[in-house]
């Protein structure tokens, strides 16, 4: 018997975890699906003729998906590290890797897919009614690149050729790829938080992230203040070029950071599942 990964057993773990998926997540899903409906209702009832473009609604769905990703690990696997309630999970005859894969499947794949599919279905139904929702939100997803391009063109006076040069990575395929990793990063952070904290798991993890961001900003601001001379060569002529280069670098750095954080958090989560004591 393979004690690390057995497809048949993995299927059983996925089925086992899936049995409580909707039971544990239904309320969260319903609330998050209801938000676009509530906005549609509010926009329909207000006297001014407010429209919500497809790309704006897809951004809203993306944001709500991120909230779901934050809440899902604690909703589905709340007690898996609890000294009393987690015994059943620990004693389930499956390997740590199989339990981990199932956890990633539900937290980072199934939950966002179910939510996005539902949210797009709700959006499409609302769009069919007309009113404030124009066009289908799904179309807005593939227009994002164009929207970003427009924003750059309008606000930064960057022509399309320049934009393409500095954002050559930001193709629709890259956007999808990047979104997948940002989903994985967010999900993996909160999966890890769910494994290390016993109570108020999500809140504590949010607190840590906020603290880390504040710490990073303090270090960054300090660094910039102490290395002011580095920026003295920046004048009106080359400021635009420097900002563009900065964007060029930051897009790539952010992507690498997403991948690194995802991999580290996933490994730590797996390690915690494997070594958790009860």
């Amino acid at each position, binding site marked *: *018997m393979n004690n690390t990964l057995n497809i048949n*057993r993995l299927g059983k773990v996925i089925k086992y975890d899936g049995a409580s998926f909707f039971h544990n997540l239904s309320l969260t899903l319903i609330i998050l699906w209801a938000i676009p409906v509530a906005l549609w209702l509010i926009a329909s009832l207000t006297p001014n003729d407010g429209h919500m473009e497809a790309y704006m609604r897809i951004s809203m769905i993306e944001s709500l998906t991120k909230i779901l990703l934050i809440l899902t690990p604690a909703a589905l696997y709340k007690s898996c590290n609890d000294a009393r309630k987690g015994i059943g999970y620990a*004693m389930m*005859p499956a*390997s740590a890797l199989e339990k981990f894969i199932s956890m990633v499947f539900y937290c980072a794949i199934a939950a966002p897919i179910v939510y996005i599919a539902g949210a797009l279905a709700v959006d499409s139904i609302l769009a069919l009614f007309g009113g404030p929702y124009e066009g289908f939100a799904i179309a807005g997803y593939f227009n994002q690149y164009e929207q970003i391009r427009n924003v750059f063109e309008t606000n930064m006076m960057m022509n399309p050729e320049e934009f393409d040069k500095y954002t050559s990575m930001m193709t629709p395929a890259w956007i999808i790829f990047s979104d997948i990793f940002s989903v994985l990063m967010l999900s993996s952070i909160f999966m890890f938080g769910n494994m290390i904290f016993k109570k108020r798991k999500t809140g504590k993890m949010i607190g840590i992230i906020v603290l880390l961001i504040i710490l990073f900003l303090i270090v960054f601001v300090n660094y910039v203040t102490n290395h002011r001379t580095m920026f003295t060569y920046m004048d009106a002529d080359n400021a635009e070029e420097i900002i563009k280069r900065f964007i060029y670098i930051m897009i790539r750095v952010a992507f690498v950071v997403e991948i690194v954080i995802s991999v580290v958090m996933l490994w730590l989560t797996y390690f915690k599942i494997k070594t958790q004591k009860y």
Partner: protein
Amino acid sequence: MIKINNLDFAYKNTQVFRRISLEFQKGNIYGLLGENGVGKTTLLKLICGLQKPQHGEVTVDGFVPSERKPEFLQNVYFLPEEVITEDTTPEKFIKKTGVFYPRYDYELFNKLMKELEVDLNKKFNELSHGQKKKALLACAMSLKTDYLFLDEPTNGLDIPSKALFRKVISQYCNDETTVIISTHQVKDVENLIDPIVILDRDDVLLNASFSQITEKIFFEYGPERLDNAYYTEMLPGGYINVMRNVNNEESNINIEALFNAVMKNKETIKNLMK
């Protein structure tokens, strides 16, 4: 077989076991006794792989429990003292859990639920504490694992249920199974357990079968308190004296009196039983 060799275990600053060695043979129903806080539950958790020894080793049929390999886990079941159940019916629970255990027997589950008089279609949270405990016991036994660990299984059971518990557990055990029952309620398991393991802080005071015990210790029921007894207790109609079996006489064990005798004469009885 369960082998514990030179085991050290501590929770932060509290030492629970210091270099203890112990064996549990197949085909027995062990009674694991000890005062509060001596580490009965911890020992079960170490055997199940829920805790990891700081020193020494624990093996179950050659497996290291703390590695929690599926092949090991599918052969052990631990029923904790505290009843923690999911928001589902016992039937749904066993159907989703049973698939992991190769010898899982749904028919046996049904039979045990009837025998223990628990409604298998009621949700766990609609059942009383005792009913939940019986339902979980039926679940545990229907998985037919070689090792079954029960932590205070009779707590919360009514008198008829305790008799049913003894009946189903004795039916469960065969030459290949090992049941370890950790309990304070020795009367509930008096005619069920054999051998007996008595734990003390940092130590194992006794690990012996009934025949080994009665070979060395004599339980005298009489009208008088005997001065040379390890322990004497007043019973209705007389006294029970726990003493050394110098004349090789046969007697019936009173577990409660034995436990008290061992606790009062730790080193003497430990040396006697060697």
